């Protein structure tokens, strides 16, 4: 809402892309800039190898998957801080189900079910009791992490099912990591859902102006409930992927992911105030953060230096992208 008036004077582009405002492009420009920078400086140190680029994709997949769902939540004007904790609990319930002999399907059901239930609870608290989602999901972030610690008393649960580990994380199809396949499938799905379906439109309308959406017959409560179930589901999936990638469920998975996920979404050009956004931007936002982390490690910097520089890069990238556009 804040920006409603700021670009009045700018001419609209008068074409189908007019609803992507400039901010959505920053991330693409910045991403390319960063890749080029690393390619030049550390290309010879392994950054440009196919394997390393696939590494980036693998490392980013979970954040990106959650960020896809988060794009819907944020577009609807809400926020979900619980995703990181949900990955942990889902990795454990999934692993326990497999350990108990329910196989891949059982593990899948347990992990996704965990996510969906938590999403449902979050959604109901937000829509029925009208508690701000920041509070609801902050509370569930804490409670769910507690459950993840409690369920096995912080012990990791090993997954010895090779099929599971193959499908959820460690496997490759030809040269392509399965994680990348998961990611691409969901990106396409999310993009269509976001841009092309009534549901996506209703999400945007709800976030753009909840009352107006209601007056157009949009069941905004249902929409909000669904977007929370969406993040729950995707966090559940991300938890299974963590588990598959590391052959174990663990209570500490996903700690701090909520901020990375939200950052990817905002970096991608989605407004924290709801109503506008893009899925592809989100994907690129996530990839960009993953690339920065990877590149700085390959550069051989200290952790402290990595942190300082990655913070600065993010701001510079956005600032630079902005300048480009103005010129």
């Amino acid at each position, binding site marked *: *809402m804040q*920006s*409603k*008036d700021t*670009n*009045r*004077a*700018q*001419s*609209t582009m*008068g*074409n*189908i892309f*007019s*609803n992507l405002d400039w901010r959505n492009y920053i991330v693409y420009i910045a991403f390319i800039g960063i890749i080029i920078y690393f390619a030049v400086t550390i290309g010879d140190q392994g950054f440009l190898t196919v394997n390393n680029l696939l590494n980036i994709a693998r490392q980013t997949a979970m954040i990106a998957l959650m960020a896809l769902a988060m794009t819907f939540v944020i577009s609807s004007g809400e926020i979900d801080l619980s995703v990181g904790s949900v990955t942990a609990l889902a990795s454990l319930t999934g692993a326990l189900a497999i350990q108990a002999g329910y196989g891949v399907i059982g593990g899948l059901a347990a992990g996704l079910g965990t996510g969906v239930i938590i999403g449902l609870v979050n959604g109901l608290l937000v829509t029925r009791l009208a508690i701000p989602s920041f509070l609801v999901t902050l509370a569930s972030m804490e409670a769910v992490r507690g459950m993840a610690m409690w369920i096995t008393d912080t012990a990791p649960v090993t997954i010895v099912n090779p099929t599971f580990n193959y499908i959820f994380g460690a496997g490759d199809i030809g040269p392509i990591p399965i994680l990348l396949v998961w990611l691409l499938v969901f990106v396409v799905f999310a993009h*269509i859902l976001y841009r*092309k*379906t*009534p549901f996506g*439109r*209703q999400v*945007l*309308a709800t*976030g*753009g*102006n909840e*009352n*107006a*959406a*209601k*007056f*157009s*017959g*949009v*069941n905004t409560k249902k929409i909000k409930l669904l977007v929370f179930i969406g993040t729950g589901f995707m966090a559940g999936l991300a938890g299974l992927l963590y588990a598959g990638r590391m052959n174990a469920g663990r209570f500490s998975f996903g700690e701090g992911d909520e901020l990375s996920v939200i950052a990817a979404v905002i970096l991608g050009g989605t*407004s924290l105030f*709801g*109503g*506008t956004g893009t899925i592809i931007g989100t994907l690129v936002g996530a990839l960009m953060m993953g690339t920065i982390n990877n590149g700085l490690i390959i550069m051989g910097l200290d952790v402290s230096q990595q942190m300082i520089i990655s913070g600065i890069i993010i701001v510079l990238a956005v600032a630079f992208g902005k300048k480009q556009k103005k010129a």
Partner: protein
Amino acid sequence: MSELVLEMCNISKSFNSVNVLNNVGFQLKKGEIHALMGGNGAGKSTLMKILTGVYSADSGEILIEGKKAEINNYNEAIDHKISMIFQEFSLVPTLTVAQNIFLNREDKTKLGLINDKECIKKTAKLLQELGVDISPVSIVQDLGVGFWQMTEIAKSLSQEAKILIMDEPTSSLTEKETDVLFDFMERLKNKGISIIYISHRMEEIFKICDRITVLRDGENIITEDCENTDLDTVISHIVGGEVASFEWKERDYSLEAPPLLQVKNLNVSNQLENIEFYIQPGEVLGVAGLMGSGRTELVRALFGIDHKDSGDIYINGEKKLINNQQDAIKANMALLPEDRRVQGLVLQHSVKDNMVLPIIDRVKKGLLVNEKIANNISNEYVDRLNIKTDNIYKQISLLSGGNQQKVVLAKWLATEPDILLLDEPTIGVDIGAKTEIIEIIRLMANSGKAILVISSELNELLAVSDKIMVMHKGKISKTINRKDIASEEEIQYAIQGY
């Protein structure tokens, strides 16, 4: 023709024990256009919101086509084929015009996906029929209020309704758009659709409506066929007494005095071209033009909101650089913006907080805000503009539309500027208050200020201005002394660009 499609009986409603509607009745016939009239805060919008399930009545019942209807939310109203253009717009600002118009009833492709192309095509057609020159893919928040309102109208017209409620649909429109709208309404009426029409523009009522119901302070005053009454009678029903009609009065001010505000060679890309004019102390300059003719853009540029490509502004003969609002305010200018919700008010704040915001640095004692002064100023303007509110602490979004507009006006009057730019100051304000506002503008001018008024209501503009400047496609096409204007048609002609 006399079949009743809607009957509202004995509707009462109060908000925290303030009675807003008192046993109000309302009847609507099939295929009629029925004007719902009343002063600001009379309860018109509330009555319609009860009909559409936004509010629930404390008592009373609603019959639709003779059957008792329970309408608890807007969706149930849609089920009864009731559709409403809300006074506080109900568009999603972040979506495009087409997306808004077809929200929740988009065309689908075979795969069940949204067929945006089809929606855009239909929108383009609709907009063309309405004579609106905007792209279907413009984002609504980038458009001016006028287009915003047209989008709203297009949206409701494209819905299949039996009862169409229009709550001040034309408040930001010029005559041209209004006429197109009336054609449309005529056609709908002939199809048997019933329309409830709310407006403070009196002439419109007699142009288009079949019957009139007047509310005053939440009570039924009269329901009458238009043929059997006249403008003055209706006005006296609305205000509950006599009201002076808009009349131009020649005022005395020095024509020789150096201009208080002078603008030279102002250019804003794509919007304004070579604007030059001046206003003398004590002068009221009226600005007329079609929608999108650049009137709002002009005042925005003057006030430092939009970037100027070139242009010099002289105040009292001194050249001033005005690059942002702060500069403008420092130069003792004030701008009353055209869109009260977006630019005028902080909706979740109280009447008082809104009123004193521009002068907050002046109502303090020591370092702290002096609540007593703030209260006094607020109360003074509530009285002076006759703002209907329980008290000055009431949240402003709970005031009626016209009363909100009066607060916006009060807020800028209270700044006591030397140069006052008023962009549609009387949107949604009732007939009684309009004459008072015109009087206030004259008083301010008499004290030597320079005033620029933009208004789409010609009779109002003619009543208040000393000089009228007509804009067309971002240029000044004509400037005429009020004295030399013989009739409304003359200026209307100039506006259309001939």
